[in-house]
């Protein structure tokens, strides 16, 4: 579980996120949604420690996040897996080396044990015949699978995904979303996903936090978001014709 209390972050004279408090639950896919520029990525980077917050507190399983405590930070980092928007795979390494990278950096296992662990996660994310390929030789969907495999290879307690299905076709996007949700439940990890994709919201939104101009204005799940009367959320959710039709058909039924 990750808990944030009143965190704020500004850059020069721009307040990017203001007094956000939220709880991201364990074993659930927690989604941060909002329009581009609403502060989703900044919030995630604050949680990851890539940005220092101006004020507020962050707790990882009741332990206060303290950037100045180097040994705690170092241990915490090993418990975090991250899937970046562009996958962020290391170009100079093969798929297998990319997945083995966290093991090589932080594990004391033998090379053969590391390979067998990497093969285990490769199987879990359903990557076939690509161990010796370089990132430039595989498709976008496969890159996401490699990124997920790399993120979970050390059995993290927390998984962060920044727009994990951006740039993917709708079918592959749903497969990747489902994969993340399955892994979250299977490994009982706290997963936080940044997205503005309504399909993801509907498919895997166990818990949703909605940001507007750096402020949290709504919290709920994927069923509640369809039925809320909040105008800002409705503007966001029903901006697409498909969802407008969904709402219309729901009204007709009721």
């Amino acid at each position, binding site marked *: 579980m990750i808990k944030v209390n009143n965190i704020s972050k500004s850059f020069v004279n721009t307040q990017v996120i203001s007094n956000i408090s939220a709880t991201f639950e364990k074993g659930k896919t927690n989604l941060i949604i909002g329009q581009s520029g609403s502060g989703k990525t900044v919030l995630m980077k604050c949680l990851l420690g890539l940005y220092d917050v101006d004020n507020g507190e962050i707790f990882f399983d009741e332990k206060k996040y303290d950037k100045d405590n180097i040994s705690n930070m*170092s241990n915490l980092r090993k418990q975090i897996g991250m899937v*970046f928007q562009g996958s962020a795979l290391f170009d100079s390494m093969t798929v297998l080396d990319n997945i083995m990278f*966290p093991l*090589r950096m*932080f594990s004391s296992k033998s090379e053969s044990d590391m390979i067998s662990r990497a093969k285990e996660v490769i199987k879990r994310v359903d990557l076939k015949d690509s161990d010796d390929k370089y990132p430039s030789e595989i498709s976008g969907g496969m890159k996401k699978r490699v990124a997920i495999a790399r993120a979970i290879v050390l059995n993290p307690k927390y998984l962060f995904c920044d727009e994990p299905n951006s740039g993917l076709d709708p079918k592959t996007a749903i497969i990747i979303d489902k994969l993340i949700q399955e892994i979250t439940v299977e490994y009982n990890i706290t997963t936080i996903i940044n997205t503005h994709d309504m399909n993801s919201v509907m498919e895997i939104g166990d818990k949703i936090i909605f940001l507007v101009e750096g402020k949290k204005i709504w919290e709920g799940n994927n069923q509640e978001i369809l039925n809320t009367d909040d105008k800002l959320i409705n503007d966001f959710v029903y901006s697409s014709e498909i969802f407008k039709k969904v709402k219309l058909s729901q009204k007709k039924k009721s």
Partner: protein
Amino acid sequence: MRIFFHIGRYFLMINYTFTKFTKWSVLKKLIIQEIDDLIIGSIWIVAFMSFLVGGVVAIQTALNIESPFLPGNLIGFATRQSVVLEFAPTLISIIMAGKVGSFITSSIGTMRVTEQIDALEVMGVNSFNYLIFPKIISLLLYPFLITLAMFLGILGGYVCSVYAGFSTSFDFIQGIQLDFKVFHVVYAYIKTILFAFILATIPSYHGFFMKGGALEVGKASNISFVWTSIVIIIINFVVTQLLLS
């Protein structure tokens, strides 16, 4: 005043580079890879440039000697002094700022743009140490390249002056041996070590702290080359003043 910000951040980067070391088993492979990219990959360009520039130095010296009172061994002497004192350590370093420096800036810059550096940091890897330290260590072999440049520069001078009829083999070799001071070679290697450190760190700084996309990677490589060259020239001036004047 912005320059002081960059100087400060550069030294902080150097400090972070030598803290929280990456596992030796990982670092070892990175160092070998960097030696291959930065040193072995530069041998041919250094050899080619040195041989020809050494030849040009010898020919220019010969063409500018008009007085019959000047000794015949002057061509060899002038070639040796030019190559050992300036051409090999300084000019080759500026060429390397273009070749190796641009490679370092663009490779680190691309990692920044594609969030690979963020990925390292999220994992808890000291990205400064992981990316920059192997480059510094591999460039400790840079004096090997400069030795090659010295040898081939003088050889180029010998071949051009003897086979083009500007000097005899005996005179040229006598010129190379004339008034030889070991300290001049020491001075050249002191410069080389300093330039190696500059070649590894300034391009890394420009790649590491760049912002933007692909276009900015190109711009960063360009700025990196300019600043690396400027710093090499300044250090050359300071070291020459300190050691030779």
